């Protein structure tokens, strides 16, 4: 269940502080209203609503599908469709979702570099957004898995390491079979990906949890030098004084066609294998 901290302070000091917070919120509210009146032309219509409903049912869609969906929603409701205005269309939706602390956000898959749109919940600053589906000890294990992934060099956590951390839970312990079952659920619910016994954070997870990860793992989290987003599966410059990180797909795009790849920050030779740029898959129905 999604809740915000309720304000039930009783002391005068706290009450004054709350009042100030509320006044600031009202100010922000007024600013939003002013913004909205500027955007009067962009009111939500049925095309937006249908798009939003589809996003709600799917959680995350790739860019290609989002474009097709945008066109389809406009055509279904006889609204003008401008192909390269998808982000504006989404912005209209986001302006109305903001009071509910929801947003349609864009992010990149670390596997293939494809862009995705995900409907995310901005209310929680913790993994408690998952609390309606997972027990406390399960959330704790998820946090530990995230620890392992963030602190790893390759952005992966082996099932062995995760099973071992199940033994160190401070909430109720998890048996091996329970941990395996939990990991399957996390994959099924699209928080984690699994490949050959190793777990990575899903694209949806990265998009949704980015603010939490940035604040929680300030010092440890890697940031891609090219796109400036948080990075887990990436290549690292070998020069000790440099050590910049670049997402695998960002490496592919940045170094494409260059005879001799060089670090964009320190100009040292880039020693890693440059992956191929992956073409986006043509749109497919699930």
């Amino acid at each position: 269940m999604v809740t915000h901290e309720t304000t039930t302070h009783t002391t005068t000091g706290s009450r004054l502080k709350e009042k100030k917070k509320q006044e600031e919120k009202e100010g922000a509210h007024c600013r939003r209203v002013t913004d909205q009146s500027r955007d009067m032309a962009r009111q939500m219509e049925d095309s937006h609503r249908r798009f939003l409903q589809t996003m709600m049912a799917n959680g995350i869609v790739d860019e290609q599908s989002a474009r097709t969906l945008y066109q389809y929603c406009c055509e279904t409701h006889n609204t003008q469709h401008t192909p390269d205005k998808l982000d504006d269309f989404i912005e209209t939706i986001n302006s109305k979702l903001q009071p509910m602390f929801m947003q349609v956000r864009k992010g990149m898959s670390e596997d293939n570099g494809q862009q995705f749109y995900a409907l995310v919940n901005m209310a929680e600053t913790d993994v408690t957004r998952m609390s309606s589906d997972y027990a406390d000890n399960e959330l704790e294990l998820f946090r530990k898995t995230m620890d392992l992934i963030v602190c790893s060099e390759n952005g992966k956590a082996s099932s062995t390491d995760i099973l071992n951390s199940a033994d160190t839970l401070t909430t109720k312990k998890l048996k091996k079979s329970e941990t395996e079952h939990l990991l399957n659920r996390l994959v099924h619910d699209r928080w984690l990906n699994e490949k050959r016994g190793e777990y990575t954070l899903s694209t949806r997870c990265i998009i949704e949890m980015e603010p939490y990860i940035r604040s929680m793992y300030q010092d440890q989290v890697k940031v891609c030098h090219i796109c400036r987003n948080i990075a887990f599966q990436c290549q690292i410059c070998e020069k000790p004084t440099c050590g910049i990180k670049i997402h695998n797909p960002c490496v592919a795009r940045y170094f494409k066609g260059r005879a001799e790849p060089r670090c964009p920050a320190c100009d040292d030779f880039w020693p890693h294998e440059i992956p191929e740029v992956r073409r986006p898959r043509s749109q497919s129905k699930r």
Partner: protein
Amino acid sequence: MTQRKRLANTQSSSQNKRQSVPLASQEEDDDSTFPQPSSSQVQRGLERFTPAQVDQKTAEVVQFFLVRDQKKIPVRRADLVKHVLKDYRNIYPEIMKRAARTFDQVFGLKIVEIDSKNHMYILVNKLETAEAPPITSPTNPKTGLLFVVLSLIFMKGGAVRENLIWNTLKKLRVDAGEKHEEFGDVKKAITDEFVRQRYLEYVRIPHTEPVEFEFRWGQRAEVEVSKVKILEFMGEVSHFLSERGLSLCTDEDGCFRVSISFLTCVCVCVCVCVCVCVLAP
């Protein structure tokens, strides 16, 4: 059997106020302690909070509904008051009004009260089910099963003894006693899951010994599923079967069965005759 990709949602203007007697008695809520505030109480209540606070509370109510509805769990007013509204319970009608407006304007959804005695709500789609959407949601495979059951109930005039359901499903090669590869535990899906989600009602037939139960459409089905769609679905099933020389009909003890139609018999006979003529010297 044609499988529905998505449950048809349609706007229904009539609210179903039918009083059901659900099997699980824990549905009784303690709403009796919450008296509906008068409009003057609401006015006074509104003065206690800033507009921003009221907006925030409305947003929380919207979130609460969305999370519950995602799992097809109806929202009970008692839960809403206890977990979300709390101090704001006196302006409950105003918050609900604003939440409804948000659902309408932002999401294209409608809040529908499916149980006016226990005050339970669900979200219903206001947008028409569109043809051939480019993205089909991760489909719940049990939707097809649900549609078959709803169709059977519909064709039998609104109520069906449970034995008829099991027997008919068996003839469609879905054995409720066994684990089905696509639907899983069929009996549980129908008697528990669909009932909890309010798609079906599982009602005891009075004066039966041993006790017998019947199935009816549930409140959610009444508002979400259009009868037109059911007829279309039945039409598709019929068409599917007729293409294979089969048809739906009811036999003496009221079971639906699939039978080879007369036309097919004729065709088969003709083919046999032709073969005989050709082969014969």
